[in-house]
């Protein structure tokens, strides 16, 4: 097998996009190789669709540059870009039948005619021509065959099923021989079985055609199944770019781990190289290079945990089985290690109430630096000993700092309270995400001025809920920022 030469087809350099000052995509850089199947994966609102739309040309980046084949296309309008898009709800033209939908792009295209002419100043140009009717017919028929819709040319698009409309949308894009095919959650509107079938078909098409696919989805399974490379995004920031296997096995941080597959996530401390402490125990692991006693997150996939008899000398910790539920191809077992909850996937049933031993291989402890260990907010003093945090004022021990002084306010995760009722807290916000950390939940709340708070809480907060953020003024640490003298 000849190894393909890797050439960059798409490259984004420091691309940001703001809507009314709110960042949707924040300083994103990456490149995509020719022929690759790349998936943008992330929860809704993470900036994945915006990124795709900037590649297609529907959105103009606020800053940064986009290259296709090494050419800067940042200012090129969409109709002049060598990419085609399959839209989320297909966006088929309702007034045209299947044939004319697919032929739409071909009818507009101008191709070299092989004839030349010389203008007054002596420059030689190749004349352009349009496709002939026969050529269009041939191309449309070919592509309809590719998507299994050979006899549907004359059909009204509204009379087609969702899956068929999806195929027309793909055919309509592919017929233009795009260098890159952009797919914006193309399978989102299909039912589960249809989705599985289309996944396989899309993969086959990608293999057969050899063009680059850029795919957007929030479905992690879809991303893992189909892609060569996954780009995980959150809050407009790329979290990880890696192969599906790597994203699954070595998630870059707790967010990626939580979003991709099921996992146990614990806060821990890296005691020294190869030695991690979590769940009140010390384990051997394969990671090194962390600072001594650095706070980290430990991720253990449920299928990497083995249940062994508690008497077995290999048992690292003892656990108590809380529940055991059959999930079709495995049992999902919840076991308590002291106060920590551990999720285990096993092929054998376990008895509820039984005490067991736990064994985990050293390389199945995935150690990740914490995204943040304390909430830090750059802000300023409103007046002496009063600090502004996200629009609310707090009395604090400001060490005599005067109003207007720039300060860094720090609040520990566990010193923040979340209230159901927005009015009960001093700051209003929206729950972005909640990650279970074995014995508590880490909840991520975005305040109305877009500052993101990490909060350790006992409750599972629903994503998207409006909540109040409460802070006890005594828990705010104030440090003066000295490095920003006015110019």
């Amino acid at each position: 097998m000849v190894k393909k030469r890797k050439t960059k087809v798409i490259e984004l350099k420091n691309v940001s996009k703001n809507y009314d000052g709110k960042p949707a995509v924040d300083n994103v850089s990456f490149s995509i190789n020719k022929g690759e199947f790349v998936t943008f994966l992330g929860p809704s609102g993470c900036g994945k669709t915006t990124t795709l739309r900037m590649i297609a040309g529907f959105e103009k980046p606020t800053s940064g540059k986009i290259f296709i084949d090494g050419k800067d296309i940042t200012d090129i309008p969409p109709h002049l870009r060598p990419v085609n898009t399959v839209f989320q709800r297909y966006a088929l033209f309702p007034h045209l039948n299947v044939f004319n939908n697919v032929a739409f792009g071909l009818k507009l295209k101008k191709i070299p005619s092989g004839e030349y002419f010389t203008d007054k100043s002596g420059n030689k140009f190749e004349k352009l021509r349009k496709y002939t009717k026969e050529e269009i017919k041939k191309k449309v028929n070919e592509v309809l065959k590719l998507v299994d819709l050979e006899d549907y040319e004359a059909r009204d698009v509204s009379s087609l099923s969702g899956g068929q409309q999806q195929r027309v949308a793909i055919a309509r894009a592919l017929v233009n021989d795009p260098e890159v095919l952009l797919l914006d959650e193309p399978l989102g509107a299909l039912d589960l079985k249809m989705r599985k079938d289309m996944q396989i078909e899309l993969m086959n098409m990608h293999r057969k055609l050899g063009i680059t696919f850029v795919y957007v989805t929030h479905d992690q399974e879809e991303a893992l199944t189909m892609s060569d490379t996954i780009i995980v995004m959150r809050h407009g920031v790329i979290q990880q770019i890696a192969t599906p296997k790597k994203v699954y096995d070595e998630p870059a941080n707790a967010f990626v781990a939580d979003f991709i597959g099921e996992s146990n996530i614990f806060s821990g401390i890296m005691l020294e190289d190869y030695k991690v402490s979590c769940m009140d125990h010390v384990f051997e692991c394969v990671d090194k290079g962390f600072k001594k006693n650095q706070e980290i997150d430990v991720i253990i996939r449920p299928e990497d945990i083995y249940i062994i008899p508690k008497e077995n000398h290999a048992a690292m910790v003892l656990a108590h089985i809380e529940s055991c539920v059959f999930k079709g191809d495995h049992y999902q077992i919840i076991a308590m290690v002291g106060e920590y909850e551990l999720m285990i996937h096993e092929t054998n049933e376990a008895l509820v109430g039984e005490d067991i031993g736990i064994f985990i291989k050293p390389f199945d402890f995935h150690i990740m630096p914490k995204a943040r260990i304390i909430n830090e907010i750059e802000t300023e003093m409103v007046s002496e000993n009063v600090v502004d945090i996200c629009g609310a004022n707090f009395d604090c021990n400001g060490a005599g700092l005067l109003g207007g002084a720039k300060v860094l306010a720090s609040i520990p995760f566990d010193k923040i309270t979340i209230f159901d009722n927005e009015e009960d807290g001093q700051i209003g916000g929206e729950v972005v995400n909640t990650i279970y950390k074995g014995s508590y939940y880490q909840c991520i709340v975005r305040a109305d001025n877009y500052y993101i708070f990490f909060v350790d809480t006992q409750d599972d907060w629903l994503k998207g809920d409006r909540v109040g953020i409460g802070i006890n003024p005594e828990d705010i640490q104030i440090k003066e920022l000295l490095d920003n003298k006015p110019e």
Partner: protein
Amino acid sequence: MQKNILLTIKNKIKGFHITRSVFAYPYILFLMFFVIIPLALILVNAFLAEGKITFQNFIDLSKDGASLKVLGHSFLVGVVTTGLCLIIGYPVAYILAKMPSGGVLVILFILPMWVNFLIRTLATRAIFQAMGVSLGEGTVIFGMVYNYLPFMILPLHTTLSNIDKSYSEAASDLGADPVTVFLKTTLPLSIPGIISGVIMVFIPTISTFAISQLLGGVFLFGDSINDKFNHGLYGVGSVMSLVMLVFVLLSNILLKRFNKGEAKSSVW
């Protein structure tokens, strides 16, 4: 410098970044000229007398007994007409909403709306003349009700037929007798329809022009406004128009408040 500007304009037109909202600009200008400025002129003229900004026109109107009487009278005719339309129209809309074929039948009730109102008015007058009824207050109100009844039935029918049947079913399931069901569920739920019906009848009735004159020689507010302008009394005429305008705006604010999310009723 100029070349630069030309270049940017050219780029804007050539590129994708020409915003499609540009297409609205000519019409925005048109609205400015033919809707906003004319209404502003009414406002200006209302405060303008002998080239000065004064309240003179308001004072003149408040002293003009005849005009005030017309205003009061129009108001009365409007209230009576609207009330009668509601009393007659509500049962019609209600019965139609309950009938399976009501959606088609309602067309019969609003069909006369499409015949020019002058023709309808003259037809009513013809009947009165043929029956030897002398024209006056009574015939004016009858003609008004006749003219505006479809405007009451249409929004009422739309609202009533959009009320989910399960509400009244739930009410009777909870032990309400038919009268209570109507009073406690159907009637409150049809309030948006009632309000839009009332406005659709009341506003045109008080500002009616020509109808009342043809039907009984009665002079209403619309005729009065026209009369003032015909006699060159732009100031007082503007004040009267302003009064009308306030009515219209207030009623629309009311309508918006009650009609949140309510589908607009239309014959098309």
